């Protein structure tokens, strides 16, 4: 409860935070090679990360602090429906196994830093590339903001949030400090900082979750008792006469569960920060191996989700003023663990916010620099100019996220992050389609993207929930099928249909197509294959 400051826990938390800060600044000297002024160095860590570094980096990147707070919170609030994160991450890796190696290869051959770079090269279309870049930035911003929400939940539980009656400055000072430090080392070290810090973060996360799953059920009377308590809670009728949750997915909710899992899995590796992590690896097989070993994190996520049920048994909401389900896991840790270990657990969540926030801001900065600044503002920018602009952009992105969290209701950030997944999924046809075929016409892809964005946003706008009047959910009836499904996936199907039909029309009308600078061999190129263009690599032709 937020009665006072938990000194032991806070001290441990701060020790880890200081250690990580030192690592973040020292990271700029780690594996330094090549031309330090090149964007490949700051923005992709020199494209040099091997299997294990990539594993820690991607794990630290994809499984964010917000995940650690939100997944158990969803299970705590609704039961089985919140568990969809598990099928989602199970589906994601086999799914992307098929196309990420191709993206890696073509990006290596042509020096692409962002997914929008690839679109520009593949379709020769500035408009489509800009659409993909802006979608990426738009989807990433609220995601960074949510990392702050994760830190806030921990700080509140530690008692340093100042409580509801503190003035806003005292309340948010710790958050300011954390973010200022993060911004400083991301600026100086680039992607190397989160890559190195990810080692600390992931190790802590594994220790904390394994300890929690072994220790907490023992204290709460075993899993049998935990699930029985949860079943009792979810059988209780809510204000509208319906049960507030369920232990398994009812037949009419199964489409929602499956489409949410599939749609989220398809979206996962379209996010700019995921692509950044992938392109920073040193070979095709590094990427493939990681698809096979990243499920280790999914197992952690699944066990973490079970903490939501433990929070029910622990009755975490008792007597806490201003309790919301986001606080379920931090409160559970406080109740169950000795103070010093609570500090470790909170450090895991706090650092778990810093790593993805750093990578996301780098990815958004790369997009801005390559696909807006260089494309439209200063076409003759040198690699050193690019690095300079990207560093400044990464700062602005973080400030934007901070203003977002402090200035607006937290619910807005949560709504926008849900929308972000829906939006980023609308780049699937262009990016993944483009990795396999050049059949699509770029104007058709742009129209499909626009159709998906508008339809998805409009549908989501119409959804109300107890917490919010608009954007209150992510699923709606699927036209023609009559089941309830994930809006993002319905929008994706519409997007695909529009792209196919318009491509047929445009091809029939013989509308000129853009120039494709890639060749089929580029999509299976290995790191040691010579540059087919003979240009000094990486190519910075556009």
């Amino acid at each position, binding site marked *: 409860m937020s009665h006072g400051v938990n000194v032991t826990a806070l001290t441990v938390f701060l020790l880890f935070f200081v250690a990580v800060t030192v690592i973040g600044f020292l990271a700029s000297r780690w594996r330094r090679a090549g031309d330090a002024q090149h964007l490949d160095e700051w923005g992709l860590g020199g494209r040099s990360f091997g299997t294990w570094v990539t594993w820690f980096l991607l794990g630290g990147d994809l499984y964010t602090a917000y995940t650690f707070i939100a997944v158990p919170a969803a299970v705590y609030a609704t039961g089985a429906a919140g568990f969809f994160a598990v099928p989602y991450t199970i*589906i994601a890796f086999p799914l992307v*196994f098929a196309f990420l190696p191709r993206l890696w290869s073509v990006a290596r051959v042509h020096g692409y830093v962002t997914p929008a770079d690839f679109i520009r090269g593949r379709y020769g279309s500035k408009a489509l590339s800009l659409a993909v870049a802006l979608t990426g930035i738009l989807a990433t911003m609220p995601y960074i903001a949510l990392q702050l929400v994760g830190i806030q939940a921990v700080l509140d539980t530690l008692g340093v949030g100042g409580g509801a009656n503190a003035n806003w400055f005292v309340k948010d000072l710790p958050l300011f400090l954390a973010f200022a430090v993060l911004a400083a080392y991301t600026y100086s070290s680039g992607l190397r900082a989160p890559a190195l810090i990810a080692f600390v973060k992931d190790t802590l996360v594994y220790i904390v979750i394994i300890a929690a799953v072994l220790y907490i059920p023992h204290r709460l009377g075993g899993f049998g008792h935990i699930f029985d308590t949860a079943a009792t809670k979810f059988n209780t009728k809510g204000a509208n006469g319906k049960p507030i949750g369920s232990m398994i*997915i009812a037949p009419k909710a199964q489409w929602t569960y499956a489409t949410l899992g599939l749609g989220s899995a398809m979206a996962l590796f379209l996010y700019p920060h995921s692509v950044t992590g992938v392109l920073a690896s040193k070979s095709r097989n590094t990427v493939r191996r990681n698809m096979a070993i990243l499920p280790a994190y999914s197992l952690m996520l699944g066990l973490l989700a079970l903490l939501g049920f433990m929070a029910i048994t622990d009755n975490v909401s008792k007597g806490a003023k201003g309790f919301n389900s986001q606080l379920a896991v931090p409160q559970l840790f406080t109740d169950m663990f000795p103070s010093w270990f609570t500090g470790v657990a909170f450090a895991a969540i706090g650092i778990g916010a810093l790593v993805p926030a750093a990578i996301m801001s780098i990815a958004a900065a790369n997009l801005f620099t390559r696909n807006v600044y260089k494309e439209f503002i200063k076409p003759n920018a040198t690699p050193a100019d690019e690095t300079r602009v990207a560093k400044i952009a990464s700062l602005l992105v973080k400030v934007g996220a901070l203003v977002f969290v402090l200035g607006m209701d937290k619910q807005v950030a949560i709504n926008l992050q849900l929308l972000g997944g829906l939006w980023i999924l609308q780049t699937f046809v262009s990016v993944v389609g483009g990795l396999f075929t050049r059949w699509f016409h770029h104007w058709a892809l742009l129209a499909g993207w626009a159709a998906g964005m508008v339809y998805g946003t409009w549908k989501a706008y119409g959804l109300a929930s107890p917490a919010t009047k608009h954007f209150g959910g992510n699923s709606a009836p699927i036209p023609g099928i009559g089941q309830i499904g994930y809006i993002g996936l319905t929008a994706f199907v519409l997007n695909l249909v529009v792209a196919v039909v318009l491509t047929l029309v445009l091809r029939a009308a013989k509308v000129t197509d853009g120039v494709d600078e890639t060749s089929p061999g580029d999509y299976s190129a290995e790191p040691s294959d010579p540059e087919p263009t003979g240009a000094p690599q990486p190519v910075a032709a556009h």
Partner: protein
Amino acid sequence: MSIDPDAPQAPPGPLPVITPPRVLAAVCLLVPIVAELWVSSYARLTPRFDGIPFFYWYQLLWVPLSAVFTVSAYLLITREERQRKALRGGGPR
């Protein structure tokens, strides 16, 4: 092994695009996806495992299983790629 810049449209090697290892790898990747999307196959409470309802432990079990399938796909694909390279006459690198 180099990519011939003069013949970018040529198929990558004498092997056809669809080969048995590639099909098998695709099946390995599809199995976990289908298993997870088939929600009605696991939306039930029993049998419990150590008190955990079936719905939860079954999905958790699929995490390591999916990794096994992905590793199989990885082995199939990398072996096949080596073969393709050798057939293209590049020799070992």
